[in-house]
């Protein structure tokens, strides 16, 4: 894990540029630690019998906000120390379940070089290639 994130230079980016993709495979342990630190006792993240029988999910649910954080990291890791995040939004469109491997990524949608502002579009896709969590962010270059 590198301590230095290279960051971006506005003169070197173009609309349509892809942001680096990354894969995430949640485990029982990673979901436990995430829900512990966010103090989330919702049983759909650790109690499989309850999750399938009472809330009628097909399996343990990967937290929507955890996917939001992975989405957030796409833009934060891409910009590195070259900018600050001004706005960020996402929407959990479809649930995903323990055992799935998700892919995060994004692309540049607009550049305002004078104002030093870059807009990006972000996604989390499931193994079928469906975008389950789309988002956008605006970066202010410093």
């Amino acid at each position, binding site marked *: *894990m*590198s*301590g230095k*994130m290279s960051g971006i230079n506005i003169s070197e980016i173009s609309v349509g540029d892809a942001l680096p993709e990354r894969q*995430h495979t949640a485990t029982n342990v*990673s979901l436990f*630690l*995430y829900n*512990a*630190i*966010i*103090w*989330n*006792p*919702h*049983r*759909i993240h650790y109690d499989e019998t*309850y999750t399938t029988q*009472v*809330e009628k999910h097909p399996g343990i*649910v990967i*937290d*929507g*906000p*955890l996917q*939001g*954080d*992975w989405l*957030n*990291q796409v833009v*934060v*890791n891409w910009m*590195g120390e070259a900018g*600050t*995040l*001004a*706005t*960020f*939004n*996402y*929407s*959990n469109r479809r*649930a995903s379940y323990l055992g799935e491997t998700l892919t995060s990524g994004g692309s540049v949608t607009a550049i305002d070089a004078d104002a030093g502002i870059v807009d990006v579009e972000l996604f989390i896709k499931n193994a079928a290639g469906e975008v389950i*969590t789309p988002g956008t962010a605006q970066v202010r270059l410093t």
Partner: protein
Amino acid sequence: MSELISAEARSWIGRSAEPVRIEISRTDIKKYSIATEQQQEKFLNGDEAPSMFMFGALRPVVPMDQLGPDGIAAESFLPDLPLKRVMAGGTEMTFHRPVKPGDVLIATKTLHDLIPKEGKSGPLIFVVTKLRVETEGGELVLEEQQTRIFR
């Protein structure tokens, strides 16, 4: 659809929870950063909180007897709704200043809207809340609009 959200429930729109005062701890930032697989040293070392850290830090901390059978805490600013199963819906955040260990922050959550929807497996209620986080001195840190889906 209008009966899905009663007039009584609707009257809660605009209601705020008591502001919460929270002390930001380096240890909590480090734990959050490991659990979310952060890659930057400043997050893993706890020097700065990742953008979504506050979402977790501000979840309700209430005695065990205030947790429902699903594990979820009842929140004082949200009405009782006829749909009981909850899912995350998404969020819109505006960042004004990074969050660092030692910060003492004041957070206020407000019920912004209750929106009835028809989903493919039945009725849904979108519960939209707003969060405003400031320093004790009144400097704005973060604004967020969050949606939870009741089904």
